């Protein structure tokens, strides 16, 4: 799709105009990735972090800065090396990345249905799952691949404002004492929480997922800034949850939907209740459609032809429909996602070296 149109400043060549429009498009992709990262962090908090780590969960998230930075800049470098994804190693890497994104999508759908079950307990889970998938279907259309990044750009300020309203609405009930003991169950639990959450960093591989990776230093910095904001928001959410509830409350075993909405259940203020519930659901929908569309795009690249959305309908709803599968996924999720992310980076790195070797010969 060629977009005509204006740029940030007056330009004097078509090349410059094209470059600026590509920069805008790139920025939108990174905004979407930031939302995806934030959504995965929130899901991770509800799934595992609160229960295993408790109050210092925000520390686990802050520890992710280093791996996120490393992953991001490595993927920038790898994305610039065109041609390394055409070989067997490149396609295997794409498949691994697809699996990672598929799991992100599964978790997002599971979280969405969990929230809906929390606010509408009478409804059938299978039906909610099906309707949700149908709802995200139009955004997966190949011709509308630009819609989600634009939507993310549109949503960024209302989302931050909504988060502010929902957090501030509940803040007056919190206490500083709730943040202690600082290390919760100990430093080991914080580190294990960080390990688990590090598998949510598929958004840091955005340069590998988009057509035009960031090329200049400024562009790379802009992408990194968006991802950092997503990470900080995740840490802020965990910090606010810890501020609102004491340690033993956070670590209570409960359904995922209850845990995701626990801060507003404990301290409900009328407006922030509505805003938080709607915001959470919207975030999960964005995360679901973003990971699905990117995953299907990768799979199309691997197979060489367009992949239909039927695959999504088959694989994505499994955890939402079966508690056993959900439990298995939670148990094995860290290893699967970690293997996929590291495997992708490793294989593409090897592909790059192999290409360099061939070029030297």
């Amino acid at each position, binding site marked *: 799709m060629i977009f005509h149109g204006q740029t940030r400043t007056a330009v004097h060549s078509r090349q410059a105009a094209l470059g600026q429009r590509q920069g805008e498009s790139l920025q939108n992709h990174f905004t979407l990735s930031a939302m995806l990262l934030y959504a995965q962090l929130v899901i991770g908090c509800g799934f595992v972090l609160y229960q295993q780590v408790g109050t210092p969960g925000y520390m686990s998230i802050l520890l992710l800065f280093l791996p996120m930075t490393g992953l991001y800049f490595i993927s920038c470098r790898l994305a610039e090396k065109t041609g390394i994804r055409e070989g067997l190693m490149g396609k295997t890497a794409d498949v691994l990345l697809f699996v990672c994104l598929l799991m992100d999508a599964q978790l997002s759908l599971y979280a969405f249905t969990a929230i809906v079950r929390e606010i509408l307990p009478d409804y059938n889970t299978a039906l909610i799952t099906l309707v949700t998938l149908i709802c995200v279907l*139009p955004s997966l259309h190949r011709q509308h691949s630009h819609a989600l990044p634009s939507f993310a750009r549109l949503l960024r300020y209302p989302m931050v404002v909504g988060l502010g309203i929902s957090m501030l609405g509940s803040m007056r009930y919190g206490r500083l004492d*709730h943040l202690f003991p600082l290390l919760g169950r100990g430093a080991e639990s914080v580190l294990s929480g960080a390990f688990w959450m590090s598998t949510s960093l598929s958004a840091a591989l955005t340069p590998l997922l988009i057509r035009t990776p960031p090329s200049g230093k400024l562009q790379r910095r802009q992408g990194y800034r968006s991802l950092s904001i997503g990470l900080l928001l995740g840490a802020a959410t965990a910090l606010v949850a810890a501020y609102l509830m004491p340690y033993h409350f956070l670590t209570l075993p409960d359904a995922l939907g209850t845990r995701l909405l626990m801060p507003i259940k404990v301290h409900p203020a009328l407006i922030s209740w509505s805003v938080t519930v709607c915001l959470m659901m919207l975030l999960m929908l964005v995360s679901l459609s973003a990971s699905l569309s990117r995953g299907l795009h990768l799979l199309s690249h691997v197979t060489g032809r367009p992949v239909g959305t039927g695959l999504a309908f088959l694989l994505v709803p499994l955890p939402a429909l079966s508690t056993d599968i959900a439990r298995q996924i939670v148990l094995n999720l860290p290893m699967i996602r970690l293997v996929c992310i590291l495997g992708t980076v490793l294989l593409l790195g090897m592909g790059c070296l192999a290409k360099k070797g061939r070029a030297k010969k």
Partner: protein
Amino acid sequence: MKRLCLLLLLCMVFLSGCMSREVEEQLLVILMGVDRMEDGNLVLTVKVPSNTAGDVSASSSSEDASKGGNQMGYLTLSATGHHFSDALELLLATTPRSLNFSQVREVVISRQVAETKECTLLLQKLYSLPRMHTQAVVVICDGEAGKFVEEQKPYVGSRLSRYIEVSLQNYAGKGFVPTTSLAQAVQEIGYGWQDPLLILGALPQDKEGAPEKENVLNVDADQLHATSINAVKLFGAAATDGEKVSGTLTGYEMALVSLMLGQSQSLSLWDDQGFSLPLYARAPATLRVEGEEKLMLTVSMVCEVHYRSTTPPDEEKIRGRLEDELESTLRKLQSLRCDALGFGGRHMRRFATVQAWENFNWREKYARADVQVDVQLRLKKE
């Protein structure tokens, strides 16, 4: 477009869920009460507004409901069971509408139930009710909770919920009752940060003769020498010790605790001639915990006393009296094993991990700790 139509068609299946959800087909619970009978059974009482306006025949207070324009009547429903869950199931089964707990304002537990270990479990069960309004206040009442619930009426205005909210704001503003919600109670009870204080309520009979105590506010709810439009009295607090209610604080003691916590900023004192000396504390008390095995609990406060007479009152006397009253309140809390001020939360900051804190055995050390109160007083002429 076709996909959107498919979505809409599939959504039609949802229709089955929306028909039985009309708001007028639900009963909104405003008050809940839990009693233990002599035979050991538990009685669950709820108060709901009847949905038809002016339905005075269903109201439990027909003469009040007939006053004014469009007063909504209220219905009191109850069920008896061996446990809370049984009683709730029976109530849900026998009520002609579905009960909605999203607007509960007050949860009343009789003192009989509250003084057993069942109290914590009961609070957690109430908290876990579907769509329960977790900001509902918890009241511990002397006597029957069911009767307490029944006697709660909107004596001013037509809405019981609004009447309860405004009353509680008024009492809490003066410091005579705590402001602990169900969520706070469940969060805090049993974990050592701070033990919650619950509102103490009663249905006292009208008292004759002079008040027995010098300070008429230094009594429990059922000893109040006051007649008002309200049969129900909320005054004082029930102290918890981590698993149950262990005793009560009088209204005046609760006002002192509120002052220390910063929940109220003023208190009325009287001099020997009976003139009022308003006391103001602009900030909550500073708490300190020192020592390892034998703890020293220190409370420091900065207060101002305003006076109008030409001669200033005796500052030392007032300070001494205040320190004595604060210390005796603290010792009473200690004797009830209730850390209402949150010394535990303050001391916990020294521990890096939960395990270290749990190994410290705070509750025992708190009960045996020494108490010291420092009050800096300033006199100010009005």
